[in-house]
């Protein structure tokens, strides 16, 4: 199977969209494109599983390399393993749901769907890249359209937020690029030639002092994408100002680019440095988890609540990575998938509420369960998933991270784990406060009585994301089987040497 299709299809769709003007036409094309993408991803999954079942244990399947710029050792090398495949599936789910909830995007619909589809091309390209340069290239593709999506279609302080997001992510990219260059120049493929090739780098021994210099750059760079404390401040403003679909993208996919990069590039390629810096990572992640949760408690805007809670939840990703053991890293990967689906669902529900009531302030909402039972139920379900209720994906991911973290017996790690565990209580507090006021309780506004419930497209988007959440929550062994052999593979490198 040719992985290039994953990038080409959205680009073709995006170009195709440009030829049409009417909302009805462009949204149909975008929907077909996103649907096609989901179909390819599912096909990819089944082919992948068949290959694995047939005994193909190569670390990267569907490997393909096309020369791009040989003097600098850049090639468009692609390949996937279980981890990147699960990310691709996540993206496909979120993209399709994002198109569905934007069904009535009247304002400049052509440009909107064009950018949305382009974004997805960036995400897919990122996840399939096995060349650090193209990986970086796709990371950038996934940034620029967001600036416009927020700046043009956003709400509230949208110019400020768009600028803030773009600048901070650009700064992140700059760090990432420095880190990648550091890796590049430390390689040697004969006669002074360097390479961006991921597999070649992973097999080369990079000197420790190089690692110590470039690991923080790469990790912080990707970490900014993944809401690493204290560089998370683009998250609340960016998410809150973005239109619904863009929020779903941001939280569902973009933040995962960061987590994935932290794991795949920074930690995997520079494992010795990762061991040295692990305590700092864990410190920052724990702060993000608990402090993000407390900061969420004081938010009054539903989108801010979900954005801050994303900071807290993405902390689990970084915590899992920082623990540097197999269980915790598997948990981090699960948390990425789980958080992606769950926040996308949450933002979708908030978007639906906002579209109807024109407010996101908790104080102005109340008793929505009576008026819009479907949307309210979705809201409550995503809340319950967020607070880690068994049966939904969040529980599986968080527990795996906790179990992995507890394997470290040092006091510092134990305290970090206990504090992170404590966040499940704080999460329950803020989720129930928000739901208790806006969804339950007496009706806040008589005019809300005339509002309608979800339409077919919104229902399909919600059911799509929910099915992912529930499948992982009820049958986590499938996801585990998909990712754990490859997490095990990562451990060959990550567990390679330990510098106390």
């Amino acid at each position: 199977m040719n992985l290039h299709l994953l990038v080409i299809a959205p680009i073709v769709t995006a170009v195709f969209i440009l030829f049409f003007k009417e909302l009805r036409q462009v949204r149909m094309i975008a929907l077909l494109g996103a649907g096609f993408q989901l179909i390819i991803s599912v096909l990819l999954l089944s082919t992948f599983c068949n290959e694995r079942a047939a005994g193909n244990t190569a670390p990267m399947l569907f490997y393909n390399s096309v020369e791009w710029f040989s003097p600098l050792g850049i090639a468009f090398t692609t390949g996937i393993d279980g981890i990147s495949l699960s990310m691709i599936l996540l993206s496909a789910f979120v993209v399709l749901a994002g198109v569905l909830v934007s069904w009535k995007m009247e304002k400049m619909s052509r440009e909107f769907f064009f950018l949305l589809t382009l974004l997805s091309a960036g995400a897919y390209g990122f996840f399939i890249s096995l060349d650090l340069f193209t990986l970086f290239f796709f990371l950038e593709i996934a940034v620029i359209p967001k600036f416009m999506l927020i700046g043009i279609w956003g709400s509230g302080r949208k110019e400020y937020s768009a600028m803030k997001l773009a600048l901070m992510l650009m700064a992140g990219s700059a760090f990432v690029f420095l880190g990648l260059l550091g890796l590049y120049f430390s390689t040697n493929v004969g006669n002074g030639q360097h390479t961006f090739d991921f597999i070649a780098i992973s097999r080369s021994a990079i000197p420790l002092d190089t690692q110590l210099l470039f690991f923080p750059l790469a990790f912080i760079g990707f970490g900014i994408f993944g809401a690493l404390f204290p560089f998370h401040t683009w998250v609340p403003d960016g998410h809150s100002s973005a239109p619904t679909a863009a929020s779903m993208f941001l939280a569902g996919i973009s933040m995962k680019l960061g987590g994935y990069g932290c794991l795949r590039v920074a930690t995997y390629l520079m494992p010795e440095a990762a061991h040295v810096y692990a305590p700092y990572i864990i410190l920052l992640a724990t702060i993000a988890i608990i402090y993000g949760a407390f900061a969420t408690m004081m938010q009054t805007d539903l989108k801010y609540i979900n954005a801050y809670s994303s900071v807290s939840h993405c902390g689990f990703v970084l915590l899992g990575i920082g623990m540097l053991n197999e269980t915790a890293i598997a948990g981090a990967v699960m948390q990425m998938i789980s958080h992606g689906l769950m926040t996308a669902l949450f933002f979708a529900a908030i978007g639906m509420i906002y579209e109807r009531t024109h407010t996101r302030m908790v104080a102005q909402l109340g008793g929505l369960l009576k008026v819009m039972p479907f949307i309210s139920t979705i809201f409550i379900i995503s809340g319950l998933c967020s607070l880690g209720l068994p049966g939904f994906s969040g529980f599986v991911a968080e527990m795996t991270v906790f179990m992995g973290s507890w394997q470290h017996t040092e006091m510092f790690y134990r305290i970090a784990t206990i504090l992170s565990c404590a966040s499940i209580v704080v999460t329950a507090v803020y989720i129930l406060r928000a739901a208790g006021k806006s969804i339950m309780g007496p009706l806040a506004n008589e005019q809300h009585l005339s509002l309608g419930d979800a339409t077919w497209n919104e229902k399909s988007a919600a059911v799509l994301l929910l099915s992912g959440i529930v499948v992982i929550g009820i049958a986590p062994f499938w996801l585990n089987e998909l990712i754990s052999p490859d997490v095990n593979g990562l451990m060959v490198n990550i567990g390679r040497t330990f510098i106390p």
Partner: protein
Amino acid sequence: MSLATTIQLIVLLPLGSFLLLGIFGRKYLSSLSGMIGTTSLLVSAILSIQTAYQYFFLNTAGSFEKIIAWKMTWLTFSEGVSIDMGILVDPISVMMLVVVTVVSLMVHVYSLGYMKGDERFATYYSFLSLFTFSMLGLVIAVNIFQIYMFWELVGVSSFLLIGYYFEKPSAVAASKKAFIVTRFADLGFLIGILILGFEAKTLDFVTLIERLTTSNSPYLVSATTASFLGASALTWGLLLVFMGGAGKSAMFPLHIWLPDAMEGPTPVSALIHAATMVVAGVFLVARLFPIFSISCPGALEVVMWTGVISALFAALIACTQTDIKRVLAYSTMSQIGYMMFALGVSGYGNEAGLGFTASMFHLFTHAFFKALLFLGAGAVIHYIHSNEMKDMGGLRKSMPITHITFLIACLAIAGIPPFAGFFSKEEILTAAHHANPMVYYIALLTAGITAFYMFRLYYNIFWSKEAKTAHHDDDHHGEGTWSMKIPLLILSVGAIAAGFIPFGSFVSSDGHPLHIPFEISAAILPVIIAVSGIALATLFYKTENDRPDKLSASFQGIYKTAYHKFYIDEIYLFITKKIVFNLIAQPSAWVDKNIIDGSMNGLASLVVWKSNLIKSIQSGKVQDYALYFFLAAFGITALTIYLVN
């Protein structure tokens, strides 16, 4: 049908009913939903009883073994450590299957009448089914993480049902409180699981218990040698797990959610907050009992004192409350306290395990008479449209069936022979007498108080004032439908007869049948105390008089403190509002907005300011550029010359 299939059916039927009613109920099955839920539960209950019959009576081994009927690996963490889903069949799980399905069936039937005409009838039944499913999954758990998962699920079903009347702010507040308090307790449970799982390198109950009770097993040695703050890892693990149990079972000081939980529909209170979910904590301790008893008596002592304090504390409060459901809630807490300390005083194996059997016995009988009390109270509330004692009185004539069944339940809980509560309480007291005299006397005192407040409740509802029936006669619907009365009658049979079951022959700490001799001499004192409690209540409350007011006036200090529930709620409120909100959450949000985000913005402003300074350089004037060029050229030349020299 094999054992595994039968139990799978028992558990999955309510799940099916939940999904069916939850997804399609509101739109398509509204009127049918009650019947669907009830039928699935009826099948479950019949199958449970059949399972119990098979397990207890067709057993030829002479002792009751733990059987793992079915098991699958659900999520693997690392070598040997995984979450499994499965069915563990042993005396306590089989007993719980029967209790849960029978009480749940009664509540389903009762609700057909009680909730009739409710707008969200289907939702109500789907939540009831969800609860039943979760509770059944909890009792058959093979893995400590499985129990934790279903534990959370019963928590959320309880949340959904307490908040069932979601337009009432008090119901929403109560549901939040219940969830958050138990979540806090579950944090302890979770960390306890992490500790125990890490020490024993397994999460499977059978292996876990084996590894942590075999003396000199390397797991036990390492778990008891490592120490933190003076307690071993094992002690910490067990105490934290018990914290979860104490939260769910509303033990002091984590009980504050239970009285408020009475905001839910009354049948829900009967099922969740009296008979089944709240005893989950007792069940959890019983499940891990060998570890507590053999390897960590210190932790068991904590269980004992928590139980004793809760029993007495709740009984004192119950004497002062005026909302009949709250009286019952505190009485539930008190009775669960009995079950807890019965476990606490128990040893492991043979005669020493009397407390264990007694605790399970009391759990069993309590489920019947407490469900009966709540359903009876529900009938009264249905009739009067109020929860307050002052609106009631003299109802014995207009509600004869409710009256008789309620009286039976009151006698049972007061411990009057030959009603069920007498036998189980008697066993608990005997066990306590052998183990710890202090506990015994407190328990005895509590038994007297129990008899007093239960009959205070009884007289206030059914006697006292003459019935104010005038306005009720016009609009009300009689005593209630038959669907409400039949469960009362069935449960009262349980409240009368359950005590005659020779419980020790079935349930014991080590699985070997235990013959418990009945000693009349030991039963005399408790009965005398119970009867005097009743007599005192009769004196005060049978007819309307001013004696209660005088009594409360003469003990004003203690009365007021008990009436205000010993101000525990206020303490919690202080901690959450003043400390957590004002000292942690608000500063976090402030720091984020002003310091962290502020510094990011500051950085941006700095860049803007700097670039403003620099941008004048790029003026576009050729003369300026020429000047810069020559200055730079001059500078570089000068520098080069300097360096060369």
